[in-house]
Structure formats: structure tokens, C-alpha cells
């Protein structure tokens, strides 16, 4: 009676198929009830995210037939033809345990090492737990999985650093300023790129966003979306005296910021540190300004290079993570409390054990 997993993910199925199989959060308790009442599982958890739909189950029946049943359950839920069930992967122990450990650690994610999936699995487990669809066996496996995810996060680099340009810019800001909560951001240009970058800073607690654009109406529109304020474009250098971060992504064909201009701004701002992120192509900021004291300039290539380095380091950590997962899975599977005679004893009513 091992742990079983059946499902599909971003590697095995395109989005058209994944969206058909997905479970709405509100529908999970009912689906779990159907699974258990249909005799397919004694305990079950359904994880449904944008990248995966997986059923983790514990069944008293033989593993192969149980897996077939779980595949069919998914196929029925997706409303697809019977051959679809063959596209659903299914594993028994030890692969199922190792797979769960990989999923919660972000090793099986589209973006290697991402942490969002841990929260999603925790939520799915919590729903199953609250509706009493898990017992001591799945509880133990999932608690161990969360513990493994924590170990991997603290002992390896798999989740260290950011792998997107916007997040790298925010990481850099956190290495310059004491607290991002006290930082204000000036955005030059009101395009999509500016908006994404500004949102990345706001999501990590930036205090204020000021938008300057050649068309004031566009600046006002973006500022209202971001909860900030707009200023006329010719006033950006006045605003730059007060802000901590300057994001630039205008379509200007010449440098908007040069060394002489920035030097006078820095003098007026008493050389407080200034992070400048130039995500425009062609560049808006003269690269020579990075020689000025307390000016930290990064263009889109710099940010991408850091993001690539972070991703490379994550890949290099894969082997270390896999070793931890194999060891922790082996330790769990070797736990004598999981032996059949122990589980039978646990299932017996208390009075029959006397």
C-alpha cells in the first residue's frame, strides 16, 4: 500500500490539456469525496495549479490497478476520450515520494527553484486535511515534504537570487537601500516595460511611484494604475533629486541622462545613493554615469546577465538537491512505523488491540 501519484504537468501536457483537467479550488472537496467514496483511495490530496494537476493518494488496493483507476478518474474529470488517460503519468513508491519532494522544492517547476508552488501544495493539503480526506499516512508524507523543501531552501542555492530581469532589479535595490519600504521610484516612459518594472518594486514594498512621460495623459493613466502620481516630462530632473530609484524605458534615441546633468542632480541630493535601471533600447542613460559616486547603473543586459548567472547556479545545485531528496525519501520509506503490520494495528479500533 504505497503512496501513489497520478497527474500531468507542464512537461507532459500542453496548456490546452492542463486547463481541461484543472480543478477549481471550490470543487476540490467534492472531487476528493468522489475519489474516496469510489474506492480509488483511502486518503487523497489533489494539487491543481496552472502548471500541474496531480492526485496524491493512498489506497489499500494493488498499486497498478489503483493507478489505472486514478488515471481514469482524471480522464473522466477532463471529459476527454479514454486514450487521454494514457497521457497521465502515474508512479508508486519510491518515485511518488521523490516526485512530491521535488514538486514542493520547486525542482519540477517551469522556473527552476520557484517558491510559489510550495504555497500552492500547502493550500491543497490544507483543503484535504480540513475536509478529513487525509490520514496519518498522507499527513506524514506531506509534513516530511514541507520539511524537505525547507532544508533545500536553507542548504542549497536552488531558490537564491532572481531569474527575471524585473526581480533582479528589485534584488539590487534591496542590496543598496536599508529598507525598500522607504524608497520612491521615478519611472521615465509609460510603456509596458516600465509598468512591469515599477510593479516589481511596488510588490516588494516601494513607498511611492512617480511617472514622467512625454505624453502627460499616458503618464497619468499609468500613475493611476500604479497608485502613484504623474509629472510633466520636463520636470523629471527635479523629481530625480528626491527619489531613490530611477527606471528608464523611453523611446528616446539619445541619452536622456548624461554625466554632467546627473552630477548636478547628485550634488543637490547630497550624494544619497541612486539606483538607475535603464531598460530602454537604445539606452536612455549614458553608461559613463556609473563612474559617479553613489550611482549604481544597470542596463537590461546587466540585469539579464545576473538573472542568467542565478539560473546557472540553480542548475548547478540540482545534483545537491536530488541527493537530499533521495536520502530523505529513503529515510521516510525505511521508517518502521510505515510497515504494513504497523499500519494495520493503527487501523484497528482501540478496544480490539487490548
Amino acid at each position, binding site marked *: 500500500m504505497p503512496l501513489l501519484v497520478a497527474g500531468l504537468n507542464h512537461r507532459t501536457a500542453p496548456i490546452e490539456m492542463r486547463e481541461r483537467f484543472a480543478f477549481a479550488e471550490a470543487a476540490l472537496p467534492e472531487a476528493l469525496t468522489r475519489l474516496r467514496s469510489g474506492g480509488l483511495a483511502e486518503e487523497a490530496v489533489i494539487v491543481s495549479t496552472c502548471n500541474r494537476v496531480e492526485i496524491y493518494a493512498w489506497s489499500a488496493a494493488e498499486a497498478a490497478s489503483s493507478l489505472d483507476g486514478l488515471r481514469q478518474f482524471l480522464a473522466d474529470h477532463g471529459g476527454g476520450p479514454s486514450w487521454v488517460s494514457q497521457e497521465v503519468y502515474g508512479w508508486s513508491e519510491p518515485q511518488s515520494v521523490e516526485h512530491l519532494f521535488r514538486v514542493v522544492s520547486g525542482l519540477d517547476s517551469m522556473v527552476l527553484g520557484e517558491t510559489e508552488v510550495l504555497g500552492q501544495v500547502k493550500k491543497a493539503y490544507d483543503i484535504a486535511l480540513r475536509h478529513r480526506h487525509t490520514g496519518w499516512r498522507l499527513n506524514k508524507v506531506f509534513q516530511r515534504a514541507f520539511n524537505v523543501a525547507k532544508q533545500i531552501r536553507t542548504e542549497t542555492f536552488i531558490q537564491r537570487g532572481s531569474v527575471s530581469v524585473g526581480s533582479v532589479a528589485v*534584488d*539590487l535595490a534591496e542590496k543598496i*537601500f536599508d529598507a525598500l519600504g522607504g524608497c520612491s521610484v521615478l519611472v521615465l516612459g509609460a510603456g509596458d516595460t516600465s509598468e512591469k518594472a515599477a510593479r516589481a518594486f511596488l510588490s516588494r514594498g516601494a513607498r511611492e511611484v512617480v511617472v514622467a512621460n512625454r505624453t502627460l495623459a499616458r503618464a497619468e493613466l499609468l500613475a493611476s494604475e500604479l497608485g502613484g502620481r504623474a509629472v510633466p516630462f520636463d520636470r523629471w530632473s527635479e523629481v530625480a533629486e528626491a527619489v531613490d530609484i530611477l527606471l528608464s524605458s523611453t523611446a528616446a534615441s539619445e541619452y536622456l541622462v548624461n554625466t554632467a546633468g546627473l552630477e548636478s542632480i547628485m550634488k543637490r541630493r*547630497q550624494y*544619497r545613493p541612486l539606483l538607475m535601471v535603464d531598460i530602454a533600447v537604445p539606452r536612455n542613460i549614458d553608461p559613463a554615469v556609473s563612474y559617479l559616486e553613489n550611482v549604481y547603473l544597470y542596463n537590461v543586459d546587466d540585469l539579464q546577465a545576473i538573472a542568467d548567472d542565478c539560473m546557472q*547556479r540553480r542548475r548547478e545545485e540540482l545534483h545537491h538537491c536530488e541527493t537530499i531528496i533521495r536520502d530523505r525519501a529513503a529515510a521516510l520509506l525505511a521508517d518502521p512505523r510505515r510497515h504494513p503490520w504497523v499500519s494495520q494495528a493503527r487501523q484497528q479500533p482501540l478496544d480490539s488491540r487490548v
Partner: protein
Amino acid sequence: MTEIYRLLNRHSSLIYPRVNVVSDRGYFAVAVAIYGLASIYAFFLWRRGFLREERVSYVLLACALGFHTVAMLKRGFTLSRCPVNNLYEAIAFVLWTITAIYLVLGLWRRFRFLGAFASPVLFGVGVFALFPELDQRGADADLARGWSSVHAALILLAYGAFGLASVAGAMYLTQERELKLRKVRAVLNLLPPIGRLELTVGRLLMIGFALLTVGLSLGAYNLHAEGRPYSVWDAKILWSVLVWVIYLGLLVMHLRFAHRGRRIALGAVASFAFVLLTFWGTNLLSAIHGPP
């Protein structure tokens, strides 16, 4: 080990207990050895780019502080007063202050790497303090009562604060360099943000300057009250005033003239390097601080 003891004890002019496993100098030697271990570990931390959470330096320096404290207590009980009477004791006091402040700051995870930057300074200066010539009776040994001890202790605490400010400054320069060179380590390392380091340098300088001002004022008052003959051109008095002026200048530039970031960090490192390199020399030249 026997050879080391023999070397350290060969000067018969020493008035304080010789180095052995139970003397205060013995405990101090153990503390310095642990500072040495922490320095070796710091080298590997530096090579790895301060990427992993740091506990080893903190634990090593906590152990060292234990031995260091015992050494100072033993010396203090032997003399029945604050052990700040000669160069050895003065240096031991400064190093103790640096380690103690670090252990408090190190309670914040990101400041733990201060230990990696401080260890080589603690080790190098600690080895220097163990030279037997530095542990001779001070000129004012018999006069060092009450306020004189407070005067010396306050000034040495000030140097401790300046020492740690220079360590934080070195940390700032390391992190700033990574950021300017756009290295991935700037994002991945666990050093504090440079903004926080600048704040730390500034505050430690202010604390050190306040202690130095009070300590020097007390020293001037003592000389006047005790009626001892002295010259205002005494090397130590001139040097102390120079150090006070240097740190005053650094603070004025920082607070009044936007002398920020790299400049204040470099200033803190250079000023403390000056103190380290000239402290012992001016002490030996001074009629009121040097040996008789």
C-alpha cells in the same frame, strides 16, 4: 608550545605573571589563537563570496571572547583595578570591545559577516599585544586610581567603536565593489545592504567620538587635579588631540557636507589604520603614558 612559553617569558623585566596555561596572558593567548582560527575561516568565507549563512565565525569569536574576558578579569583582580595600564592591557581592552560589540551586532543575521572582517584585525593586533615588551609597568601605575582608570577605559572603548566602524567600512567597500562591477555575488551574498552599513559606520563613529571626547576631557581634568608635571607637547597628548580632530573632521564631513558612502567607509578604515599604526609608538614616547 614550550618554546613559545620560553620566548614569551624570556624577559625578566616583566612585572606581571608570565605566560602559562593559567595566567591571564595564557588565557589571552588562547583567545588570540581562536581569533587566528576565525581569520583562516574568514579567508574561505571571502573566497566563497559570503554566500552561506554565517555561524562559525560568530561561535568562534564568542569562544574567544570568553577566554579574553577571563584574561581581563584575572588581570583586573590581580591589580585590583581596571586593567588599562600599559600597551598590552590597552590593546587587549580595545580588542575585547570590538569583539563584544560585534557579538551584539551579530545577533542580527546579516551583521554576522562583520566577524569575518574583524577576525584578521583581532588576530594581527592580538599577536602584537603578546610581545613581552608591551606588558611592562605603565608610568602611571600607582596613580591610576578612580577617574584615571575611567579615562583610559572610555578612550579604549572609543577605539573599540572606531575599530568596528572600520570593519563595517571594509564590509561596505566589499559590497559596493560587487554592486559597481555588476557581479552576481552582489545579489547572492548575505552581506547587509550598503545603506545599513553606512548607517552603522556613522553611528559607531558617533559613539566612538562621544566616548573619546569624554575620555580625553577626563584625562585633562585628572592631570590638572593631580598636579602632576606634564607638557602640552607630550607625544600622547598631541597624538590624542590629532586623533580627536581626525574623527571630528570625519563626522563633520559626513553630517554637514554629505561625505557619504564610499568616502565615509574609506575614512573610517584609514583613520583606524592610522590609530593602529601609531598608538603604540606615541605611548612609548609619552612621559605620562609610557614606561618609566
